């Protein structure tokens, strides 16, 4: 009987906790459908041109993901399979950057972006995002490369391949699982970034989804359901990716937590 009591208590605590966690999500969806129902979504896309901002975020995010993979995968291969002097210290320095808050380098990055004339240009976000997000990708990818046997490289070299061919034809294709994990995490990091998006994308037509609702908040002062429909739309690509790649997410979380 005593066990039964504990179980009831445990289950009701679990239900209350899940209820509290789901309440804000439910509130978001429910509010977004008030008044005009799906008309709110239609308005968000047509009246306030949310589509343009989603395209901007999409371009920046996809470019960042591709660039992060392009710079981190070869580096992970070299750190894992090639011996060179200064390797460990170089890796440690790259690791340090995992903890650097974006805000602490914002002033100089503003100067660099201004100097290059990149204000209101996608490159102003793609390049800093790549720098900020690639160290974590490197950690994940190196962990994966370390598990691939070095004999693959040795036998490829014996067979007359050079190191570059060995990387492109053997190791890069084998790294597909970790590339998926990196894609998901880089996508999240880039789509959700706020500070640089706010500093560099001033022109309305160039703004990202993370900053545009500040304008909506003014426009939608009396139309909260309209604002909330826009918010759901902003979140939709992430939710789709999360649902499609739930397993990848879990693997990434485990790998990330163990490696760091």
């Amino acid at each position, binding site marked *: 009987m005593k066990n039964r009591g*504990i179980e009831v208590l445990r289950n009701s605590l679990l239900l209350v906790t899940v209820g509290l966690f789901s309440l804000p999500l439910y509130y978001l969806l429910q509010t977004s459908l008030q008044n005009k129902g799906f008309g709110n979504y239609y308005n968000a896309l047509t009246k306030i041109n949310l589509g343009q901002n989603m395209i901007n975020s999409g371009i920046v995010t996809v470019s960042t993901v591709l660039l992060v993979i392009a710079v981190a995968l070869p580096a992970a291969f070299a750190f894992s399979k090639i011996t060179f002097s200064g390797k460990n210290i170089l890796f440690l320095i790259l690791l340090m950057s995992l903890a650097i808050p974006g805000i602490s380098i914002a002033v100089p990055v503003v100067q660099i972006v201004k100097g290059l004339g990149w204000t209101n240009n996608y490159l102003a976000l793609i390049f800093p995002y790549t720098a900020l997000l690639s160290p974590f990708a490197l950690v994940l990818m190196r962990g994966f490369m370390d598990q691939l046997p070095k004999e693959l490289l040795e036998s490829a070299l014996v067979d007359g391949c050079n190191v570059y061919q060995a990387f492109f034809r053997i190791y890069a294709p084998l790294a597909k699982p970790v590339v998926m994990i990196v894609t998901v995490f880089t996508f999240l990091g880039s789509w959700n970034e706020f500070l640089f998006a706010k500093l560099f994308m001033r022109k309305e037509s160039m703004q990202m989804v993370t900053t545009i609702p500040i304008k909506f908040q003014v426009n939608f002062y009396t139309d909260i359901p309209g604002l909330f429909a826009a918010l759901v739309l902003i979140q939709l690509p992430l939710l789709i990716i999360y649902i499609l790649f739930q397993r990848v997410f879990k693997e990434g979380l485990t790998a990330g937590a163990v490696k760091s």
Partner: protein
Amino acid sequence: MHKNRYTAFVFVAPILIFFFVFLLYPLLYTFHISFYEWNGIDPIKKFIGFDNYKSMFYDPLFYQSLRNFLVLCVLVITIQMLLGFLLAYIMRRNSKLFTVFKTIIFIPVILTAIVVSNIFNNILAFNDGLINTILRNIGLDQLAMSWTANPNIALFSVIAVVIWMGTGFSMSVYVSAMTSLSLEVIEASRIDGANRVQTITRVVWPMLRDTHFSLTIISVISALKIFDIVYLLTRGGPMHSTEMLSTYMFTRTFDSYEQGFGSAIGSFLIVLAVVITIIQMRLSRNIQN
């Protein structure tokens, strides 16, 4: 292993270029600017030595931001880890319902700060916010508070939102750590006569030491990086009661154009980040030995 300096350089050069231009150079430049008086626009900067650091260390708002950050850090990490651990433990067996529950708790992790801040600014609003409406409807009017406008409460409201956004992460990490732990250990300790509480505190919790360690490190680092959600919820207000080092740096740098002073705070943040990383590396080496 293959040895070749030149080949290695070709593979590592691209990531290093990004690292040097957009991370290391800005980092050093932040230290540089912190020794100048500069509004960020004028071509001329005035060298003032350590004056920015002096005014920073005499600035009560700097200490208030630091204190707020520490309160947030301790509360968020403790609650998030305990809650994540308990949720993972209770839902350790696979079932459809638990998968749905875990998904719901994880979704806030991937949400965008602007979305979260808008949801909660509406939930926490004094007049027609969801929480106060519910409280008034069940007759608890005296509990209806201005959750983000009262300086004594605002920090805790922010902390609650941050916990909402982060618990799913620690829960998921604990879930995967527990599956590798094997449930047999738990069953075995039950048979040996340990009760439920003992099983959790003396068997499961100690076995997850490495997970507690990495989660703590990850949480400290993400707390240090926290900016957007605080900025969007409260802008550090009211009366700096939710000010973090990051939001304080932002306001001084980009709203009042004191980029030298802002860079001094930025340098302080960088030093904190490096210190945390070094501590982490030392400790993880000790754990491995």
